[in-house]
């Protein structure tokens, strides 16, 4: 194999968002140590400004339809990648804004916090563009390293250290599985690029290889049975990191999962549907049932997140373009609702220094705004119309029923009922129970921005979802040839996966 480094200016353009972010994170880091007296809040706003520039750049890519591949197809820019990059950058902006108050509590390395968040975001942007197995491995590790440090950021806190250690050990284990899986797939096919792998026959090595890769990505998204790191890590990590960890890497990993299942493995759909159906049912049911037993809001959201991932896997199991649309749309609704809920947890945690659900008693008396926002976010997560979560769930169920996945849908619907219970327990505590300390709570402006953004997104995606739907439909256009009910009609037999 010979590599030729022939990059034109047009090729480099594809890398512009990543390069911008790289420069910017160097700037942020330099500002931090070169100007020690600069208030660290400024670094947060500086990071947000840089990310806003990257976001503008990505939006331009999306509108202008700029795309292509680089480095022997390792790196791809298409509308799917751009969608996920916008998703990741948007999440990062909100997470940084939500971190400002929290970072003041750190005793060390306040400035580096923002640098590490940007670094992880950069890694995840590369993940969204990963188009072969090698770049999957590199980008996945790249994005995770930042998180290892971030999870264990509270140096004096045993829980945070424990969380970091557990996350690291299991993360490294997952990386091992990934590397082994990749080597098996490469050994069987001699190919690394997703579209080349599309193999005509399933050899045992290929099956084991893809299973191992799925296990590693399943670890990343926290699907049962690879979820066990989630509760402890979410619980121990600094809350803004938990918020970040619960959303952005999931999106990035779904970018890879979608490419893997819809491109490389399209021809083997009958074989993997059952795998995904199983993972989805287990994740939904397990996450929702165990969430009932939780006393800590971060753990509750951790388990609810596992269940939400189970819901998203329904779309993957559908394996059609509509399934892809539904995944993307669901991720958007999840971004606003979950980040919003975590923003409330961060705000309340900053004010009362507790994440126990008991301490949410009477939140409505102390801050009607926070309580109302939390109510909206939790109801959206539970899928109550007319909030965003409802459309997300509906979309995913419609995609699945077109593929005849009745059992999966029935289980999903039952799970909505179960999830209602623990979401409402929190609501009940906020609204009905008496507060132990009735002093009013007020939140800072950046926090308000995050909560308002969450509310706006949750309401907008619910009441007028059409623009977002058009966007996700455009982002998955490349999968239009996947077998759906329309394509299955005799007049429209299309070659798949070839």
């Amino acid at each position: 194999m010979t590599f030729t480094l022939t990059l034109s200016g047009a090729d480099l353009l594809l890398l512009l968002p990543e390069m911008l972010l790289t420069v910017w994170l160097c700037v942020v880091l330099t500002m931090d140590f070169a100007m020690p007296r600069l208030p660290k809040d400024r670094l947060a706003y500086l990071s947000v400004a840089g990310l806003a520039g990257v976001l503008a750049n990505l939006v331009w890519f999306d509108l202008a339809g700029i795309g292509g591949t680089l480095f022997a197809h390792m790196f791809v820019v298409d509308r799917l990648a751009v969608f996920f990059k916008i998703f990741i950058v948007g999440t990062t902006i909100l997470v940084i804004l939500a971190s400002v108050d929290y970072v003041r509590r750190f005793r060390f390395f306040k400035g580096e916090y923002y640098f590490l968040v940007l670094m992880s975001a950069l890694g995840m942007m590369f993940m969204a563009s990963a188009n072969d197995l090698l770049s999957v491995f590199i980008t996945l590790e790249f994005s995770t390293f930042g998180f290892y440090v971030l999870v264990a950021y509270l140096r004096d806190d045993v829980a945070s250290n424990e969380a970091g250690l557990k996350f690291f050990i299991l993360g490294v284990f997952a990386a091992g599985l990934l590397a082994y899986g990749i080597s098996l797939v490469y050994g069987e096919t001699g190919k690394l690029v997703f579209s080349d792998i599309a193999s005509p026959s399933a050899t045992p090595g290929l099956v084991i290889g893809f299973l191992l890769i799925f296990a590693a990505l399943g670890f990343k998204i926290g699907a049962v049975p690879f979820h066990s790191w989630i509760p402890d890590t979410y619980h121990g990590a600094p809350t803004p990191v938990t918020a970040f960890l619960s959303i952005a890497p999931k999106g990035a990993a779904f970018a890879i999962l979608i490419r893997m299942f819809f491109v490389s493995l399209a021809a083997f759909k009958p074989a993997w549907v059952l795998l995904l159906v199983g993972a989805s049912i287990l994740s939904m049911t397990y996450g929702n049932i165990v969430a009932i037993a939780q006393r800590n809001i971060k753990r509750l959201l951790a388990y609810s997140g596992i269940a939400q991932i189970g819901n998203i896997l329904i779309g993957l199991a559908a394996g059609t373009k509509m399934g892809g649309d539904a995944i993307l749309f669901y991720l958007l609704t999840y971004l606003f609702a979950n980040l919003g809920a975590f923003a409330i947890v961060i705000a309340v945690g900053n004010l009362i220094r507790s994440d126990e659900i008991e301490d949410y008693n009477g939140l409505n008396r102390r801050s009607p705004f926070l309580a109302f926002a939390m109510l909206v976010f939790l109801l959206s997560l539970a899928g109550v119309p007319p909030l965003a979560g409802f459309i997300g769930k509906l979309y995913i169920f419609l995609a699945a029923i077109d593929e005849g996945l009745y059992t999966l849908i029935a289980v999903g619907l039952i799970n909505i009922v179960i999830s209602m219970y623990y979401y409402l327990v929190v609501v009940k505590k906020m609204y009905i129970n008496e507060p132990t300390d009735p002093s009013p709570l007020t939140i800072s402006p950046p926090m308000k921005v995050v909560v308002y953004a969450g509310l706006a997104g949750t309401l907008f995606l619910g009441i007028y979802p059409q623009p977002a739907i058009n966007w996700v439909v455009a982002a998955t256009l490349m999968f239009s040839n996947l077998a759906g009910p329309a394509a299955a009609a005799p007049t429209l037999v299309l070659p798949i996966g070839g």
Partner: protein
Amino acid sequence: MLYTLIPLLPLAAFLILGLFGHWIKDRAHLVAVPAVLTSFLFSLFVFDEVAGGKNVTIPLYTWLTSGDLRIELSLYFDRLTAVMLLLVTIVSGLVHVYTIGYMHGERGYARFFAYIALFTFSMLMLVMADNFLQLFVFWEAVGLCSYLLIGHWYERQTARDAATKAFIVNRVGDFGFLLGVLLIWLSFGSLEYRHVFAQAADLTGETLNLLSPIGGTWEVSTLTLICLLLFLGAVGKSAQVPLHVWLPDAMEGPTPISALIHAATMVTAGVFMVARMAPLYNLSAAAMDVVAVTGTVTMVLGATIALTQHDIKRVVAWSTVSQLGFMMMACGLGAYVAGIFHLLTHGAFKALLFLGCGSVIIALHHEQDMRKMGGLKDKLPVTYWTFVIGSLALAGFPFTAGFFSKDEILVEAWSAGALGKTLATFALVTVVLTAFYSFRLVFVTFWGESRVDPQHAGHLHEPSRTMTVPLVILAFLSIVAGYAAIPDFLAPVLPGPRGLAIHHEHPAAGGMMAIAAVLGLVGIAAAYLVYVTSPGLPDRLARQWQRAYRLSFNKWYVDEAYDRAVVRPTVRLADRLWTWVDVAVIDGAVNGVARTIAWWGWLMRLVQSGQTQHYALGMTLGAVVILTVYLLL
């Protein structure tokens, strides 16, 4: 434009109150009341328009499109919509007015009005839906409003879980409903009523194998399945057995909410839905039978429980459960027109009864126990007389609204074959029970000796004008609504399975009328006998029929059964899974890594003799083992 304004005015009221509630505060009614009353006037106009046989569809906006999926928000008006609009706007308007007095000076006054305006909007959108998804969304939205209203203004410290329970139980029903909607999408490729109804007949022969995922065969008619799944939603929303448990608990909310949401409008959505889906249900005899039997069971169960409750609102609540069952039975037997007719009259007299309860409760400073009432008829004359009218209507006393609508159902049921005759017999028994408990309520609360807490007994007085005027208007409606020719008006849009409904010409009509009237009077007389002439009798009866009494008093132990069978096992499972699986796995894994390393260390100490050739030997051996395993497999 006029049509669109009917739902939009309450929505505007909600938005104004929601966003500017801080400034508006106790002037909130100045925003909400005119909005709803204007909606009422427009509804009258619409009623007049569609009475001419005109059906109107007004698209609002395209909610979402993706591929073949296309869902619009539209307003659909026909005669059924028109009568429902009138019911909703009248009761909502009166409840708005009543609330001015009831909630006076309470905290969150503006927010309360915001929520009932939102509820009114959602309920209006529900009845005007022209597709299944819109129906479902507002079906959920009314549930959400009900949740917010119970959850934010509970009146007593006990049973604060009521709101949560109501929402979750409803979600069980909605599970079925949404599954039904998805199945409709799969079968018809559309969610619009007119497409689905037009194609429904083509689907009669189709079946669906329910056991295909596990390789079995269980062919079920698709139409029946759709109807049953949708009905599950109605079971939740209209508090039918076995999902009836939430409605009585929802009485923890403020009384105007009970009147509006839990008596007149939201809970009747299930009955409305079944009637609206008549073209589907008519094609599935099995589903109709299920609806009819469920309704009958609910009717009897609700009535037996209402006999023994002490809480004044709970008696009315159980009566609502029973009456909803009665309506559902009518729909199940194909008497949609009669069912909707009763829904309308019931809306009037049950709202009246609840608001009457509210007056009593306010006068007694939030006392709801009937045993601490009595002798109120002289202190609260307006409340008393309107309450009596409401009770007469509920009991089916001749020439009240309830009499006509009940009779309509009984006649229709009697003419609906063998099943109809059986269920009608149960209905006749229920008529006696209904008359008995409604007059038990009147006699115990308003007659006899005063058992009022002496603290409040001194200054008992009729509530303010804003509260009594709605009572009088509803009392008036509880009588005259029966004389409106609603059955004739509705008959063309709600054909039963045997074609257009033919009611009063039935030979049994006159006889049934007489029997029902007599049975109602028997019930009232029995209540008079038991609670007025011999005051010791109730206790003696309760002791003599202890087992039956306990069963009724404890609501047939359904709550307890659910707690044992569903709630506690789930919570326990959650706890076990968490501690056994997660904690064990994660700690096990991480500690396992440490232990494995320690174990390897121990193993290494055995091997590690400091001689390099031993390491090399170990590595080579490892390689051989792996290679051999790979080659052998």
